[in-house]
């Protein structure tokens, strides 16, 4: 990596700080403004008011809001996200236990989506306006418009119950088990991600196919497959990288729903349960991690872009 890229990365990582600070303030106050009392939820309907009061004090939630925020920030700058008020475990531990699951799912989904979209896009581009191209177009629209939990259930019914190929739920213990357990969840998210990738890629390939340098390559007698991979695809795939980068936030959001459907123990499940129980420190920690992930992935996308296309300069 050259100096330019390093400088660019450092600059952007530094600019991350105010962004995350802003996000932390907004999350902190937003979740406390919505009604719902963690102590009450923890103790359930059978608690009497005195016990609720005592637990509130134990959680430190009887302090004025600005004080609570200061304590939170002090801890945060020391690398401590605080403890879950419901599960009474450090937030970092809770997130750490689940981060790999969600990252696995997101990366798996990305790879699967690329593996599905590139051949389809190429095929559609080469056989432009054929029956097949139109078929893929219709399938894309269908895939995009079906809600992911519905696709998830259909896939489960088909590939876990009717044909017992994949487990219904869980994560497994080894790498190959992860691959097997997360295949259906990843495929589910891919259903809505691939259409977003295929359409622009197809258009790009069609444009490039009629470009002069492709004709020149063919004229030089280079094999058609080589032309497609080295000349067409390399140029066409740039846009796809950008789309993937932009979509990472959306991918994380999608994983929240899909993790719940497939009982995958990732960050999404944690987020949902901590919102329902008003586990403030966990929600704050998760939002920060999600935000940081989105920013870092976008940064990586920019850098990757310059590697794929040396003409692009980072500012």
């Amino acid at each position, binding site marked *: 990596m050259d100096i330019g890229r390093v400088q660019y990365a450092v600059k952007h990582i530094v600019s991350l700080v105010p962004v995350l600070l802003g996000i932390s303030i907004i999350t902190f106050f937003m979740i406390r403004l*919505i*009604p*719902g*009392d963690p102590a*009450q*939820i*923890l*103790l*359930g*309907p*059978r*608690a*009497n*008011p*005195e*016990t*609720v009061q*005592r*637990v509130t004090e134990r959680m430190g939630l009887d302090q004025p809001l600005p004080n609570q925020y200061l304590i939170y920030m002090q801890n945060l700058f020391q690398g401590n996200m605080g403890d879950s008020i*419901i*599960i*009474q*475990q450090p937030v970092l531990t*809770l997130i750490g*236990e*689940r981060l790999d699951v969600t990252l696995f799912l997101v990366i798996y989904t990305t790879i699967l989506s690329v593996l599905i979209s590139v051949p389809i896009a190429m095929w559609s581009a080469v056989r432009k306006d054929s029956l097949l191209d139109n078929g893929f177009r219709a399938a894309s629209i269908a895939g995009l418009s079906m*809600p992911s*939990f*519905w696709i998830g*259930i259909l896939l*489960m*019914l088909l590939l*876990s*119950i009717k044909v*017992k190929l994949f*487990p*219904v*739920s*869980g*994560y497994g213990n080894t790498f190959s088990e992860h691959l097997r357990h997360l295949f259906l969840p990843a495929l589910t998210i891919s259903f809505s991600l691939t259409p977003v990738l295929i359409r622009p890629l197809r258009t790009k390939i069609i444009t490039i196919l009629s470009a002069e340098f492709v004709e020149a390559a063919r004229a030089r007698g280079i094999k058609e497959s080589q032309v497609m991979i080295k000349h067409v695809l390399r140029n066409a795939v740039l846009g796809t990288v950008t789309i993937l980068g932009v979509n990472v936030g959306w991918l994380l959001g999608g994983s*929240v*729903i899909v993790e*719940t*459907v*497939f*009982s995958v*123990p990732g960050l999404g*499940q*944690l987020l*949902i*349960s901590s*919102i*329902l*129980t*008003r586990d403030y420190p966990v929600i704050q920690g998760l939002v920060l991690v999600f935000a940081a992930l989105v920013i870092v992935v976008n940064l990586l996308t920019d850098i990757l872009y310059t590697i794929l296309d040396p003409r692009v300069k980072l500012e």
Partner: protein
Amino acid sequence: MKKRLGLALVSVWTMISLVACSASPANQTAQTPQQPAPQPGAGQTAEQDNTPQPGGVLRFARNHDITSFDPIIPATNLAIWTMLNMYDQLVRLSPNGDGIEPGVATDWTISEDGKTYVFNLRDDVKFHNGMPLTPEDVKYSLDRARGGDSNWDWIYPAIKSIDVTGEHQVTINLEAPYLPLLSTLALSSSSIVPKQVVEEKGKEFFANNPVGSGPFQLESWQRGQKIVLKKNPDYWQKGKPYLDGVEFVQVPEDTAKIFMLQAKELEISSNVPFSSLQQLEADPSLNVLVAPFARLDMIPINSTVEPFNDLKIRQAMNYAINKQEIIDAVLMGHGEVATSYLPKVMYYNEQLEGYPYNLEKAKQLMAESSRPDGFKATLTINSGSDINSQMAVIVKEQLKAIGIDLEIQQLEPGVVDEMHSSMKYEMITTYYSSDIIDPDEITMFGAAPSGGTSAYYTGYKNEALDKLALQAQQEQDETKRKEMYYELQRIFSEDAPFIFLFHTPNSYVTQKNVHGFQVSNMGSYRLEDVWLSKQ
């Protein structure tokens, strides 16, 4: 967010099952034992061998994880039912939940004045770490349960002191007679913990690394995913548990549970939606269990708000709602009509008439009330519960018949609970369940205006009822005590601070090779009695 997803999933599931299972036989509603089976294995097919076989791991799906293994901290039913399989108490609930039987205490004597309880303890109980369970541990655990660190201190009001009075003996001294004591001692918060471990390692450590003396001990805990328990080989009931271990798996989505059962990834699933039971019953490899549960579903009415301070209006609403119709439509017929504040625990008044559906009477009461022309009101419901939202529609329709125009407000469960406990509502859907078989817990908590929750946050006041509830705690004559609770139920029913709805049972689906799985009235299960046959 999850709520709407859940609703959507259920409707999707219904669609799929309609398409996929058009051939399921009619009239197969799962009416499994009102009286749970007396022995392990009963209720299974006859040709099977009824001798328990050791071995195997039971995978058990539940909706949520628990938050702590410290008996005095969590208050959720799931946590209570988990810990009852990991700890021992002085006494324990009988398997079907209709009485109290010996636990760590082999026997006990109660003094004439009802203020002294002497418990003789077993001498062969060991904690999971190998240390013997001593009377000092019992004293320590119960003092801890009623002390300031406990979320359950309120349930031990009458205890004056707990003393070690012999090598294997503990004596509990009361300020005044307190009849619910034995029931309370069977509760999970009364679990016996090793004094030395808790004092040395601290309560935070203990909450994650519990040491009990019950049939199962914690092997690992993957939060939000599963709790893995392994067999306690030194359990004092020799030969039990039969299972090598239990995995409580967290599966919040109904559809996933059903698929996992069909794919044999689970042995037992709890909270299977009533709407799917008929279809699962038709599956030859599955058993359906609908177990009665000491739970009351109701609509508390905020009587501090006009016009709900008018008794006639509260009674009119009770008459106008056809509870059986709701049970049939929403619970698919599983459930029983409620008549007063008490779930089906000891001294439940079966004879009480309550408010059978009577539109004429309801209209007449409305005509005599402060709002003869009807009024507008808001019913707040929990958006996470499909049962609540289906029920709300029926309630709205039925109250319209007596001129009440109901607006339904759907909110998240946490918000609903807070509105309820701060009394910022008009009508709200909720429920409670009893943790003990004695009626005192629910009477003090749900009905008695001075019991700390203002009659479950309705603002209802009745001094006579308050007095009677306190007297009933101390009444040593069983017949008289029963009469008192009958009277309490009658008064509360007549004053109608709630719309009394129904008692919802618990639903379980198990694989056919699961034997001896029985659910008590309090919803708990003794997994040391469960065994698996080869399939």
